[in-house]
């Protein structure tokens, strides 16, 4: 099937004795929006870190865009077309908003290897454009983000992924720290991605959000996938039952 953008087979991660992720078989089609749900410590972020090569997996295969991939690090994953908002946001606190937006892929005016001259003006303007989409309020984007609120920081991280075109976007709890309005704006960004046919993996604890926005829900429990549900065929109580372990999907029963 060539319309699958990302697939994992038997993806496994052990931290010493901790089996954080065990044999995850997962697939997402082009244009599809899939939610990953599960309790704290279920292995959701670990799953993301293996796909984006922030860590090297213990076992298993990752097939992206039709080819098995072994990214050496997150930069390779990003260059291949996977944009990620990490749960810990990955921002540099002492730098201002434009510097964080373009961290590691700065716009330059004059190429000179490591001593290339920065194009601060272009980065500032692109940052303004990207942030407007999230609807966040930031009094001065040239302040270091150390002094900014959790939600403002989160919007910077989200705007960063939205500003660049990608084949797959992954967001790890993007609205966890956001206010009502900002959450609505981020959900608007997600809807825009859907309209543009860009696939998305969204990790969220917010049942309403998932049922409003997503096509499919994959439930993680204790490092294993325990359910794969179409949003149309399920309801919140059902999902809670899978998350807590009261139920297990038919095809996952042997685990």
């Amino acid at each position, binding site marked *: 099937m060539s319309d699958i953008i990302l697939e994992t087979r038997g993806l496994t991660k052990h931290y010493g004795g901790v089996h954080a992720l065990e044999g995850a078989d997962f697939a997402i089609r082009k244009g599809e929006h899939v939610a990953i749900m599960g309790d704290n410590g279920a292995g959701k972020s670990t799953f993301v870190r293996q796909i984006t090569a922030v860590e090297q997996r213990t076992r298993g295969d990752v097939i992206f865009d039709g080819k098995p991939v072994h990214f050496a690090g997150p930069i390779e994953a990003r260059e291949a077309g996977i944009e990620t908002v990490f749960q810990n946001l990955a921002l540099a*606190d002492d730098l201002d908003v434009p510097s964080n937006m373009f*961290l590691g892929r700065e716009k330059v005016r004059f190429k000179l290897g490591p001593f290339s001259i920065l194009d601060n003006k272009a980065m*500032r303007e692109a940052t303004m454009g990207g942030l407007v989409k999230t609807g966040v309020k930031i009094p001065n*984007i040239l302040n270091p983000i150390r*002094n900014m609120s959790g939600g403002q920081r989160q919007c910077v991280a989200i705007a960063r992924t939205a500003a660049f075109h990608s084949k797959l976007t992954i967001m790890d709890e993007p609205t966890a720290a956001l206010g009502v309005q900002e959450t609505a704006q981020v959900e608007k960004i997600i809807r825009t991605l859907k309209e543009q046919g860009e696939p998305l993996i969204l990790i969220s604890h917010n049942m309403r959000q998932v049922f409003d926005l997503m096509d499919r829900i994959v439930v993680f429990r204790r490092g294993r996938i325990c359910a794969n549900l179409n949003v149309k065929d399920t309801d919140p109580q059902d999902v809670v039952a899978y998350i807590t372990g009261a139920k297990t999907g038919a095809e996952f029963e042997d685990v």
Partner: protein
Amino acid sequence: MANSAHGIGGLVFDDKKKARAPEWNVFFALILIVVVFEVLGMILQGQSLLFDTDGRFDSIFNEQRVKIIILQVSIIGIIALGSTQVIILGGIDLSPGSIVGLTAMISMSFAQVAEVNGMVNPKLMFDGVADLPVIVPVLIGLVVGIAAGIVNGALIAYTKIPPFIATLGMMVAARGAAKWWSKGQPISFPTEGYATIGSGMMPVVIFFSLAVLFHLILKYTVYGKHTYAIGSNEQASRMSGIKVDRHKVLVYTIAASLAALAAIVLSSKNLTAQAGMGVMYELDAIAMTVIGGVSLSGGRGSIIGTVLGSLIFGVIISGFTFLRLDAYYQEMVKGVIIVGAVVLDQWRQQRAAARL
């Protein structure tokens, strides 16, 4: 939803009330210290430290003393430009003092004259290696610095040992190499060309030129941005695709090259090289850096701050001599300044954290 120049989402931002750049605090500290020494000078010595009170000069300053103060900090200031970058990166470098010793010895052995007063140069290091063009010892010296810096950087980036340990090793090893080079003998009698590099006010010119260069590099290039980013959050920098390890090697190499340059200027100024040159320079350089407001936890600080820090350092040291206080007090006070600057930095950070 009106957006201000740099704000977004309708919050009002008053451009006039922008926070004062931290360098201003360092500048005010410099003024304050000058005032303290002026007052003490008037009381204890009956004369001014920096100003021309008896009309010996054309300007309002005591030019001679101002020159001495700046000249005195210039050579270590060159090293401090490197320490600044290493500390912003979140590291520390203890090796520059020893790299000064080693580079001075090696450069000088390729900068000697063939004959002194019509006789064969008695200190000639290598037979037949004399009267070379000045570019040769300079390039050789830089190569020594680059090599030492690559070793420092590679140890830190790829074996993951703490910078403190890696550069401590280099500090001991490079000093040993400096002594081994000529079996402890000083090397003297440089060519006229070589002697020009550090003559007169040349060290000051070199220091300020390099300061301007690295100020621009840190502020306007990708290199500068990545140095701050890594010092601020190494993990985030890595995840954002910055080649952190390669960048670390580059920064430590630049720092060691600056130490090598300082060695060339120093040996030229002294017209001789000794294995013991540069002992403890790294600590003075770190002191200038920290006084200048560069945070030891990385991510914050600037070249302007360090230049101001070096001037504060110079005023304090000269001030003590001026007040005829013992050299012992100087060293003790140096210690107090270093610790004081670090305490101040910690305090600033806690205050910044409390505001979050």
